[in-house]
């Protein structure tokens, strides 16, 4: 049997990530990619639904702080992520299963690396188990 590979669902901001890439390429390597025009559009419900829907991790690729095309969309989502991590802990879900990256990569070459990097971090957790309840926090 082949070793366990966590499913990562990845949101990427079009303004910072891979807009030069002729879509298909990165798409081919990276499944479950959701391009979005500004990471600020990503809502809590998206992230939770993704985890519920079987994503072992959710990765959000946003622009550098202060370089958001819409002023502060990445900052807004950043705050959400911090809060969501706290909520996930109560649900007994490892907060590291949600990650936000503030950077820029027009060619999108870094995207697969970022995803791999997150995979490595969360694979020890094993597949996500929402039913599981939190022990003393």
């Amino acid at each position: 049997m082949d070793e366990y590979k966590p499913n990562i669902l990845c949101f990427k901001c079009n303004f910072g990530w891979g807009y030069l890439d002729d879509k298909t390429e990165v798409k081919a390597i990276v499944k479950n990619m959701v391009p979005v025009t500004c990471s600020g559009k990503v809502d809590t419900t998206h992230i939770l639904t993704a985890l519920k829907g079987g994503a072992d991790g959710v990765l959000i690729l946003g622009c550098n702080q202060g370089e958001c095309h819409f002023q502060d969309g990445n900052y807004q989502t950043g705050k959400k992520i911090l809060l969501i991590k706290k909520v996930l802990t109560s649900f007994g879900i490892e907060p590291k299963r949600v990650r936000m990256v503030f950077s820029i990569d027009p060619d999108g070459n870094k995207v697969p690396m970022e995803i791999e990097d997150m995979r490595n971090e969360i694979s020890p957790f094993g597949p996500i188990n929402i039913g599981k309840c939190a022990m003393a926090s």
Partner: protein
Amino acid sequence: MWKTECGGRTRVEPAVKQFLPPCQVQCPINEDIQRTNVLISLLPEDPNAALEGVQQIGDYLYERNPLFTVCGYVCGLCELECNYSSQGGAIRRRLLKRFISDSYTYNLDEKEEFNIIKNKENVAVVGGGPAGLMCAFDLSKRGYRVTVYEASPRLGGALWLIPQYRLPEKVLTAALENLVRIAGIDVKYNMRIGDGKLTLDKLKNEGYKAIFMCRGTPTPRVLTFGKDPLEGQDLSGVMYGHDFLYEVSHGNITKDYFRGQKVTVIGGGNVAFDVARTARRLGAEVSVVCLECENKSSRDGIPADHEEIKGAWEEGIEINYSRGVKKIHGESGIFKKIECPLCTSVFDDAGFNPKFDTDDTMFIEGDVLIITVGSGPDKLALEKEGLLDERGRLAIDPLSLQSKTKEWIFLGGDVRKIGFMVEAMRDGLYAAESIERYMRGLDMHEGRTRAFEAQDIPKSRHYKHEPDVVWIPPEKRMHFQLFERGFTLKEAREEAKRCLTCGPCISCKACISIGLQDELPTVTVHEERCSGCGICTSICYYGSAQMKHVGDNKVKSTTDMFQCKACGMCVVACPTLARELIGCDLETKFNGALAAL
């Protein structure tokens, strides 16, 4: 790869109240600055890959402004209104445009002619300056057969007065020659209207259905004191700035022409400083004398741009503020010195009406006196053509630029009102529109008064300071090469990123043309779901999410579509799903990705 598509061209609707970024409102031809800023900010880091992009951005700019390569060197009007001025310095739009121009200029020669079917009437344009060329370009694109009558042996008009250390000759010539080639415009050189037999009526008889008259201001204004012209302006060693610059640009003046000589320049405008700095580069020791005072912000402040004054000062040019010229002294027909009383005030409520304190008078000696106090139109010619009213002023309708005496004649450019290059270009575009309306028998005015509202500065937590412009140090720049360094690709991307893109998406659409998204989403409010909690107004950076009162002291949120950028922040923040992004494919893509898990 970097690719924009012509899809998503922005439109600036006449006669429609529209929010625009202030730069675009300020620009006389409403160039969509934000859009190209965004595109530049999205250029690839790799210079070669970027070149493609620069080319495409250039093509886009060229379609609406064939002289943008020149503007990039000489015009920074938009920067005056930039929202960012209040927060660390205006976006250096001129340098950004110059960054495009720097490489685009060298592709102009290869640029293909527009493929236009010329099936409309013949139109003559009298004068090959910015106004005329712009008009000819626009009419030609509309399908008119346009002929430009240029008095001199080359196009460009007043543009040639711009010294080459600010505007390289190559940039100018490339722009001018290719413009007429690409737009398929016929040019007749050395044809001075009103000169001998060639009159406007004659042109009309030759079959030109309409004529755009933009002969500029060929006549230098003479120096006066009080009402009367000063004597001594005919002394040897006394000349007029415009003639001087003209000769320099035509290479009729050798370098070191003024070596060892003392040159005095009269005038406080940009042209005067062009003259002074040019003279300096020709070896002269230069001093400027102007009526206006040093404080630019006061009513009597010096009109020349801050950069000009700074440059001149760096280059060792002495500036005598608040001095008039009461008398020009000469000896045996040769200029010696001027007598300069203190100017106590330049303007009063009556307008230009200088007052002097003759008790405080200084003498400035010199070998050469260059008078640069402006220039005016060739009144005689205009009078002969019968284009003036009883009070000797141009008889035209200010909106349509149509002559009140001859409805087939249109006038614009400096001849109408001396101004910046791009203002003349705007006249050209106006005239073109008027001529089209005149030909098609349409109303000359309807829907031409524009109502643009400048967008406020967006709320941001990261305002950045403007980058410094790099000038070659004075001692190293006493020549006619450019003294201002342009942006590198990296600098250009950085500066373009700094742009807050105040303008609404509808006036930009850069993201669409580069394929970041397929269409502009819009935010709708489902009022039946909105509880008026106002969280959307708190989050909105553009002031587009607003509250309105409904009936019994309740509030509901609305979206000002003019200002909204559909960034979706309010949609995410809305706790009751009252706000929705229409035309945003996020949900579809998300569900797709979810299904693929």
